[in-house]
């Protein structure tokens, strides 16, 4: 059987090589401009069979909706909208074909069904090419949307596949496809292959099988059992996943609060503009991505120091122009910095428009890392978790081992004594505030990967940030860390039972109650003056 289908494919390949000429490929492409759903498959097959190197790019453009019918001459071209005009290119070669007005072109209709069709066609083609990961992806794509030839193609591939993991994937894929088939024996043989698999496709195939009327009871029961076992495994994985979600939320809280842990915690400045400093960091990311249009990833990495500088500088200006006149008057600082926050918000609105800006997620931060089938941790969350810990460690080291850190601690504990010892306390104040602000900016870079970059970004984090710092114990960096992660995990454990809204309310009320009984937070700073 594998041999026979191999011959079939070989034959197909030969036909493909022999028949189409460049001219007929063009015709096929132009036929896409006016083709019904029923015949489209054939046209696509023909185009694929031409084996032209530009086909993949063509299919990709088609799937993205970038193919247009040029109404002036009836040809199909690739187009890109630039304002009111469209820049046209040859879909195969990429040669420029001039510009067209809105009325000159019509987009070739694409939808999810077509995209799936294109993906499958390309996947079949890629079964034998690329690295093992790409082959696995191709196999999955084939199984996700099987066509009549899929099983045969997979069978043909398995004989040649050398890589063990890919081979296993192929076997499972063939098994999954077999479950949908008529042959009871094949089904019986395939079922054991699927034991332990938790992915959606397998479970879907099992579920369909267990519903079928034309299958013996005993097979259905076996499928049922496999499903139950998979579900049990998934439940466990869900618990691990929930923990990860909690830690991830905690890392966001940590990032948004950690700058405040410096300005508020160490210096005692109530900085209501903290959220806006985060926002500035996020906008810095956006600006850098505009400056470096082709490489969003590089822009993101560069944004980390850039945002630190931008927010740090703004923080420095705020400290020098406002806060330094208000030391020892915390409530006045609160009001004044709130004024600053309004001004910053409106400034951003006036400069960048009130609309949200779109920060691109680089490809290496998209998607997820599949730890186990059924347990995948998203890269962006994972990266932010690691990043938050790195920022924390850096700050901790800075406070503990550097001269500035020493001076900051000295000034915050006994300003007069520190000054007597020659510490220039004003300079330390300014630098500390700039440091806390800069860290807020860095947090903004990370948050731009998770949420909207808009003028209101800061507002949504300010209350949480203060609560985290107060909950952890003012002046205690470790407290901030513990507070952020415990709040994150706690919210995420509550959420399934109560829903997101109630979970948030309960966490807030719980915090208020906790702080009423222990106003000093989890790790109070105990000193001679009793702290307050």
């Amino acid at each position: 059987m594998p041999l026979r289908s191999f011959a079939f494919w070989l034959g197909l390949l030969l036909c493909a090589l022999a028949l189409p000429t460049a001219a007929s490929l063009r015709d096929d492409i132009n036929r896409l401009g006016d083709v019904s759903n029923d015949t489209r498959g054939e046209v696509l097959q023909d185009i694929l069979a031409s084996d032209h190197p530009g086909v993949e790019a063509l299919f990709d453009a088609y799937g993205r909706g970038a193919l247009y019918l040029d109404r002036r001459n009836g040809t199909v071209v690739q187009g890109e909208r630039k304002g009111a005009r469209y820049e046209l290119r040859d879909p195969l070669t990429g040669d420029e074909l001039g510009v067209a007005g809105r009325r000159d072109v019509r987009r070739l209709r694409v939808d999810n069904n077509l995209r799936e069709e294109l993906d499958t066609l390309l996947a079949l083609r890629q079964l034998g090419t690329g690295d093992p990961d790409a082959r696995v992806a191709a196999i999955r794509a084939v199984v996700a949307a099987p066509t009549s030839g899929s099983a045969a193609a997979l069978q043909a591939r398995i004989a040649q596949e050398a890589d063990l993991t890919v081979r296993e994937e192929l076997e499972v894929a063939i098994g999954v496809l077999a479950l949908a088939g008529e042959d009871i024996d094949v089904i019986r043989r395939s079922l054991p292959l699927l034991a332990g698999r938790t992915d959606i496709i397998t479970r879907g195939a099992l579920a369909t099988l267990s519903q079928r009327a034309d299958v013996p009871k005993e097979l259905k029961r076996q499928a049922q059992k496999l499903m139950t076992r998979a579900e049990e495994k998934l439940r466990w994985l869900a618990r691990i996943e929930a923990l990860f979600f909690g830690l991830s939320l905690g890392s966001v809280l940590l990032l948004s609060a950690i700058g405040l842990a410096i300005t508020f915690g160490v210096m005692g400045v109530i900085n209501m503009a903290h959220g806006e400093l985060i926002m500035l960091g996020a906008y810095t990311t956006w600006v850098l991505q505009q400056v470096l249009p082709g490489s969003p990833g590089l822009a993101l990495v560069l944004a980390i120091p850039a945002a630190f500088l931008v927010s740090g500088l703004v923080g420095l200006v705020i400290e020098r122009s406002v806060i330094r006149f208000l030391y020892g008057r915390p409530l006045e600082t609160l009001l004044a910095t709130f004024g600053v926050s309004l001004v910053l918000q409106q400034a951003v609105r006036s400069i960048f428009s009130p609309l949200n800006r779109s920060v691109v997620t680089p490809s290496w931060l998209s998607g997820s890392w599949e730890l186990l089938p059924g347990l995948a941790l998203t890269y962006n969350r994972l990266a932010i978790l690691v990043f938050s810990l790195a920022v924390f460690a850096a700050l901790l080291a800075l406070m503990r081992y550097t001269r500035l850190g020493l001076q900051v601690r000295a000034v915050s504990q006994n300003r007069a004594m520190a000054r007597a010892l020659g510490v220039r306390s004003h300079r330390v104040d300014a630098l500390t505030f700039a440091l806390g602000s800069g860290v807020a900016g860095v947090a903004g870079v990370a948050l731009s990967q998770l949420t909207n970059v808009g003028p209101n970004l800061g507002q949504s984090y300010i209350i949480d940030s203060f609560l985290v710092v107060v909950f952890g114990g003012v002046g205690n960096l470790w407290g901030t860390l513990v507070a952020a992660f415990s709040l994150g995990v706690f919210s995420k454990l509550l959420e399934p039972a109560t829903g997101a809204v109630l979970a948030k309310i309960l966490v807030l009320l719980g915090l208020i109650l906790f702080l009423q009984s222990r106003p000093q937070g989890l790790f109070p700073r105990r000193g001679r003056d009793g702290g307050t």
Partner: protein
Amino acid sequence: MKWIAIPPDRAGRVTVLVLVAAAVLVPLASFLPADSALGLSSYTVSLLGKYLCFAMLALALDLIWGYAGLLSLGHGAFFALGGYAMGMYLMRQIGDRGVYGNPELPDFMVFLDWQSLPWYWWGFDSVYFALAMVLLIPGILALVFGWLAFRSRVSGVYFSIMTQSLTFALMLAFFRNEMGFGGNNGLTDFKDIVGVSLQSPQTRAGLFAVTALLLALIYLGCRVLLETRLGRVLIALRDDEARVRFLGYSVASFKLVVFVLSAMIAGVAGALYVPQVGIINPGEFQPLNSIEIAIWVAVGGRGTLHGAMLGALVIALAETILTGSLPELWLFALGGVFLAVTLFLPRGLMGLRSTS
């Protein structure tokens, strides 16, 4: 007219005089044709009524911030709760005139398929019950929150942050439709108050007069209260809390009394605000609103009740003007005012007056 002389200073007498005069003259002017020299349109009357509610709210905050040194950044919560209590009464007044003609349930409950009126809506058919709730709900919340906070000596910025979290939590809660307060839309489409139509110019004029007179009364009451030993203790508390404690005063109970009182005044302001603007919704719980109250007080001048009221009027009027003509500048202006007042006018407009 001797009772007017109770506030010993001129500013106090002028404040009361202006309010009483407004209570009489604004309603009168509203019945003159709107285009005559002294005539006021219904729009202006509601606008002035709204300003007075804000002034009352500012007064409430000044009582605890200016005198007892407690900066609540959640006073909007008490205002909103008073407003909701009044709103619930106004909803019950609609009766079967809602769009579904259901005599039992407000419209928003009908179309979300509620079967019966939740228990916490019981009693709001009665105006007396509603008025009691206007005072009691903010009062009890302040009592519980204050008792917890003051007992464990939460003060200063911690108190501010916590009150802010409180109003934030309440906002989220009231946004939930399952709470039974109309969710995001809140309560609206009111028809009558104590049996008379809310839309009639007489009612509008009456509401304005009641607001102005109540504000004058509350102002007087607060002035009298602050002249007593209680008032002295509050000022002492603001300036040196430890000393007061070592004099043997139970600081917590003094704070609690004035906090509850202030919350109730805020509740009354909210209750008067709702029928005049015609809607109450969870947006009133926004932390931003509460911070704005602090700005009114800071602009007018802390520790002088009339200063706080003046601050509220000035800012509200400026907001009306600026959001109309230069909306983009409004936040710049407001932010600038925050900065300027804290940096250059620590005693607000009142400070300006006493130094010149």
